[in-house]
């Protein structure tokens, strides 16, 4: 219970730090109480009934929200979604505020005074919050895709230069949706085929939002566990490990490239701050390191490709493009 109290207190503090949201709500409830609680008459079908209902609904729902017992009960019943901010939704804030504002303005009889009161209330509401048009956290739209410009350029580059996957699944059973889908995704047309990408978080979070052709080793739920908890397929330990490597790529280049070769990713996107030394990353199948040939950045030689080893043909990943703060490697 103590935890719930602290939780409510902290959340209220966080919410109020961004403006007088709860302040407006409480003032409105008080206004309704002051203006309407003393109304006489016991008719139940007139406007007084609605007024009484509103006062009580506002008070009861607000008490429900801030009461630690109800919050505790809620968190107990729904342990996965113990977010206090959701409980705040029970209070019909906008309804209470517009009703209170309307009542106050209506009470003023003189037209000029009514106008001034109305404007004053609007000003109070405006000053209690912040205008959305200046939201610096979300930032301004840079393009029609609503993705940071550099990220978009990287994603577009991969889409435009991807090699088509040609593997087909037998479609003898026409009702098999999965086979049909796999064929659709592995379409030989390079405009619709899948693109396997291992990218830094800043790029990866936008990849599938931008285009479903990108196939990622792990989703952005790896950064925030709240995302899609209705899906049972959590990121495996192996993927968690891969993500940990991607967080500090300069220390884990061997692991990252080895994993990429094994899984067959077409692209690897890494921060350009990493220092790459061509010629130090070629590792032969027997484990010995040999210098790279030309300007090719080689990660690993595929041990199953004998011809390549004997002819010295380059395998692994080639650094194909630098965009913004990232460099792109293509298989």
């Amino acid at each position: 219970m103590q935890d719930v109290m602290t939780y409510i207190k902290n959340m209220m503090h966080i919410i109020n730090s961004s403006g007088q949201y709860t302040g407006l709500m409480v003032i409105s409830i008080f206004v309704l109480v002051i203006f309407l609680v003393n109304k006489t008459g016991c008719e139940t079908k007139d406007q007084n009934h609605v007024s009484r209902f509103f006062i009580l609904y506002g008070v009861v729902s607000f008490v429900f929200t801030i009461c630690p017992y109800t919050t505790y009960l809620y968190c107990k019943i729904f342990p996965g979604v113990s977010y206090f901010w959701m409980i705040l939704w029970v209070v019909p804030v906008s309804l209470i505020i517009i009703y209170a504002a309307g009542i106050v303005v209506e009470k003023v009889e003189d037209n000029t005074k009514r106008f001034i009161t109305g404007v004053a209330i609007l000003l109070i509401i405006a000053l209690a919050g912040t205008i959305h048009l200046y939201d610096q956290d979300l930032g301004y739209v840079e393009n029609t895709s609503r993705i940071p410009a550099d990220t978009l350029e990287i994603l577009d580059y991969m889409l435009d230069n991807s090699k088509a996957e040609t593997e087909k699944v037998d479609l003898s059973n026409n009702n098999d949706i999965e086979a049909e889908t796999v064929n659709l995704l592995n379409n030989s047309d390079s405009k619709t085929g899948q693109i396997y990408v291992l990218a830094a978080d800043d790029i990866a979070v936008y990849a599938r939002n931008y285009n479903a052709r990108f196939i990622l080793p792990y989703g952005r739920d790896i950064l925030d566990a709240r995302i899609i908890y209705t899906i049972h397929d959590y990121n495996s330990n192996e993927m968690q490990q891969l993500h940990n490597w991607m967080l500090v790529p300069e220390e884990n280049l061997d692991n990252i490239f080895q994993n990429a070769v094994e899984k067959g990713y077409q692209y690897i996107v890494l921060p350009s701050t990493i220092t790459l030394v061509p010629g130090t990353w070629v590792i032969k199948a027997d484990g010995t390191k040999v210098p790279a040939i030309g300007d090719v950045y080689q990660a690993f030689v595929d041990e199953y490709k004998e011809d390549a080893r004997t002819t010295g043909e380059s395998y692994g990943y080639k650094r194909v493009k630098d965009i913004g703060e990232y460099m792109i490697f293509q298989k």
Partner: protein
Amino acid sequence: MIFYAAFLVVIPFILGYLVTQIYGDNEKGSIYRYLMGMCSLICVFEVIAVVAMKVGMSFSKTMVSYMSIIGLVCVLGVIYLRKNLKNLLKEMVINLRQLKFNWRIIPVLLIFFLQCLNFFIINPFIGDDVTKEIVNTTIATNTMYLYHPLTGKLLEVGMTPIGKLVTLPLFYSTLASFFKLNVTTLLYLALPVGTLIMGYLVMLLWVRFLFPKEQQKNIQFYALMVYGVLNLFGDYYNSTEFYWVSHSGWRGETITIAVIFPFILYILINKSAGKKRYLAVLIALLTTICLANLSEGFLFCFIEILIYFLVKLLVKIWEVYQCRT
């Protein structure tokens, strides 16, 4: 885009008229019917999509089935309601002719356009939302909830049955696919504007109910203005209704909190349909199942209904106490 707009304006209206006609609650006007129709439109999709997932239908077949059923129902509805609709259209034309310009609409519209401007210039708040990924995946794979939206891999364990009940992203996929719309434009521009309009419509219902007299017309405009300013200046912590309406208008949770929640309260408190209104509440509740996870949509509306009955009891006690004294 024009067909899409027509679809979301005309079809809900016909459906709403049909539904309210069937359960006999036809006194609350066109806005009420429209919102009821919108709920019905989503509910029908929910039923079809859940059945389709159960029998393993592909997305495209589900889309065609849904559009065919909706089209058929609307055609039958128009035939069934032809006299009523004719009268209604006549009434609407007469009302439009008699409509007097009220300058107070100007600030309301100005605030509304400023809110819409926000959708064009500020990036959307994606946060923990995966709607766009689901829409992209659904259209690309032609399946429903078989592929992981965040990785693109085939789901191994799959989704929870409760998770599959949230079919709103599939509904969006249907709209995007059927009307050949750009998913980004649909989700981050068209739908937030739609949610905002529906939010205003619900508030219009409310202000008409709260300030019903003819001399209170000005107060109605003012109340709408207050709603607009609340939203426009509502850049609070990212948990509040105003923040979500302005930055995540496509989300089911936003529609629930900004439209369905006040709509249910309106249906409950407006007793013109008597006990038949509980059927309307049921439709709205079913809609929340489609819109968001049970714990984020249905549950809050259920708590709302519980509080309503508690408050109703308290109001009765208050009135009895006042009558005695």
